[in-house]
């Protein structure tokens, strides 16, 4: 036993050495040998979005049980930081709520893939002690955040919510002051439903809001809304659930008022899966489905198609494969909507294209 352990590194080195000179056909087999021979832990570094962090932490802990050798470290430094780090190749994978633009992708040192991992939603949350339920039409959401609705008892609001006792109080908008994927998704939604918003404000992680107060982080927005009556703002669904904030039902493209729930969010993704382009970058705000909640988005992991390290690349490919399949069942309890099956088949094809020196990193059986 002892001797075998002593020999292991040499076997591994020998195997890797062979691999250099081996003809193409034998490469996969040699790679396999190297994987088996190594008892060393494989460390993967990831960094990026804060939104999926609770889910990724859960996945990392669970995947450890699937493959104890793989140790994954994920730093939730924000999507922007995740993109910067993967472009600099200081991490093995990045994570971002927003997709990278063509311009940004042109500057990367290798072909970077977007892998959708989970779904999130942004909810319009409000604090009116007298009102339990609120319905907002497409025009009204835009009008509120453009600052066109000044009082809660505005006739347009009252007409949509006949039962609600709307107070004669000034309406205060609260927005995220820090750059965030939440703001990116929300402003993208507003830009897609309102020409006025698109022209005056636009979409992005940090935008110039026409009215309101800025609060830092989901917790800041939730805190301000919770402590001040007559406020309205937007936070991630999970955050609104955890802090027991009220949120509005939003009119979708089909004209139905939809509450944000895991199944209505997945419905958004499912109804648009057919439009998913080959590079998987897809905005699903204002989706077409009859029961689709309109402010939803994919959260992505960013990986290089051509991995530079066979062992790490293989571990990463297997982790991602596991996460979009078995991993999805850990989502709902943490308020992350599972990916629709229509999207998963496209993601599978993409994951198979992950390679090391031209050889796919996933076994054929998958």
């Amino acid at each position: 036993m002892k001797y075998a352990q002593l020999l292991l590194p040499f076997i591994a080195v020998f195997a890797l050495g062979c691999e250099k000179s081996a003809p193409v056909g034998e490469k996969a087999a040699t790679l396999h040998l190297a994987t088996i021979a190594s008892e060393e832990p494989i460390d993967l570094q990831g960094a990026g979005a804060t939104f999926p962090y609770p889910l990724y932490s859960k996945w990392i802990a669970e995947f450890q049980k699937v493959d104890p050798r793989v140790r994954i470290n994920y730093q939730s430094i924000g999507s922007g930081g995740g993109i910067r780090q993967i472009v600099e190749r200081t991490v093995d994978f990045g994570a971002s709520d927003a997709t990278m633009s063509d311009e940004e992708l042109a500057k990367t040192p290798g072909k970077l893939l977007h892998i959708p991992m989970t779904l999130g939603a942004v909810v319009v949350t409000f604090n009116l002690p007298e009102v339990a339920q609120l319905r907002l039409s497409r025009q009204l959401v835009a009008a509120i955040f453009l600052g066109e609705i000044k009082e809660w008892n505005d006739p347009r609001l009252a007409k949509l919510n006949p039962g609600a006792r709307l107070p004669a109080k000034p309406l205060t908008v609260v927005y995220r002051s820090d750059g965030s994927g939440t703001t990116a998704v929300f402003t993208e939604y507003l830009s897609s439903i309102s020409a006025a918003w698109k022209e005056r404000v636009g979409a992005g992680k940090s935008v110039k809001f026409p009215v309101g107060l800025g609060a830092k982080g989901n917790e800041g927005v939730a805190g301000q809304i919770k402590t001040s009556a007559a406020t309205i703002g937007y936070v991630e669904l999970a955050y609104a659930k955890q802090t027991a904030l009220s949120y509005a039902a939003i009119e979708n493209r089909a004209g139905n008022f939809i509450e944000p729930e895991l199944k209505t969010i997945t419905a958004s993704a499912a109804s648009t899966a057919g439009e998913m382009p080959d590079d998987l970058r897809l905005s699903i705000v204002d989706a077409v489905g009859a029961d689709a909640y309109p402010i939803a988005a994919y959260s992505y992991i960013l990986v290089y198609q051509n991995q530079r390290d066979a062992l790490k690349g293989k571990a990463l490919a297997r982790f991602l494969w596991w996460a979009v399949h078995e991993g999805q069942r850990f989502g709902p309890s943490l308020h992350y909507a599972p990916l629709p099956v229509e999207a998963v088949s496209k993601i599978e094809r993409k994951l198979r294209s992950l390679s090391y020196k031209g050889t796919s990193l996933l076994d054929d059986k998958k």
Partner: protein
Amino acid sequence: MRFTVGRESDERDAGRLRLWPAAIGAEVNLGDRLFRILTAAFAALIVLMLAAMAIQMTRASALSLSRFGFGFLVGTDWDPVRESFGALPFIYGTIASSLLALIIAVPISLAIAIYLSELSAAPVRRSLGFVVELLAAIPSVVFGLWGVFVLAPLLRDRIEPALVPFFGGTANGFDLLAAAIILAIMILPTISSVSRDVMAAVPKSQREGALALGATRWETVRVAVLPSARSGIVGAIILGLGRALGETMAVTMVIGNRGEISLSILDPSYSMAAVIANEYTEATGELHLAALSEITLLLFIVTLALNAAARFLVWRVARLPGEKNRL
């Protein structure tokens, strides 16, 4: 932290400075020379670090410097979507919140310092002094949370509605006033404890002299203590100002984070440190990053400039003849 007080210590310092090089020249000791070179190198490191930071920040903001030039300083539009960047609202917010904090904190701090060093009984002095210093050890995020959950609702519901007729603006609770109050509380322990130390260092004979001439307690403080402690007190205020200018977390949690200049202290504002902390982590556009770097550079310059101005003030004040009882 000690500030030189009174003539006696000045002379002692000067004497030591004269003796020191002579002592080194006299004994040619390798250890001493090495020690001197080593300490000098560490001292030089400070200067080098400042220079390296300035160079790095200038480099990082090159794109923004060339695109906007001087207009960056006076521009009032900050729109990352349209890549239009102007820093004036942030410069205004930083300076206004810090100065307002000083206006609130300085009189209170001086009152605390005078009470602790001149008027209180020894047990009170020790325990109260300890509590004041304890206040300085509280992390800023704690002040920020207290601001969000206690101060802002209090301001919004009870205090600001009464102020709106005088100052304009709206009673939101998240505004320049809230930021200034939080900052004032945060710099209070710094200013009061340093001022107290400085006053305590004023020689007892000066107080006794004033009392012997028939001065009341207040007159003694005014005539014998404050003038001698003057430069030290200004030093304490500078320390407080430094903390206020750079404070990020507590400010961003209560200032309202709106990049607009309003003359009302009841309107939301934004500070340089806050916009950097808010937007840097998620910024991906090159121009946006460069503009944020330029804000960093500006904060660096504003802090240095205000500190230099305050030091100049100390120097001027210290040169004024002590007999005139001016603070």
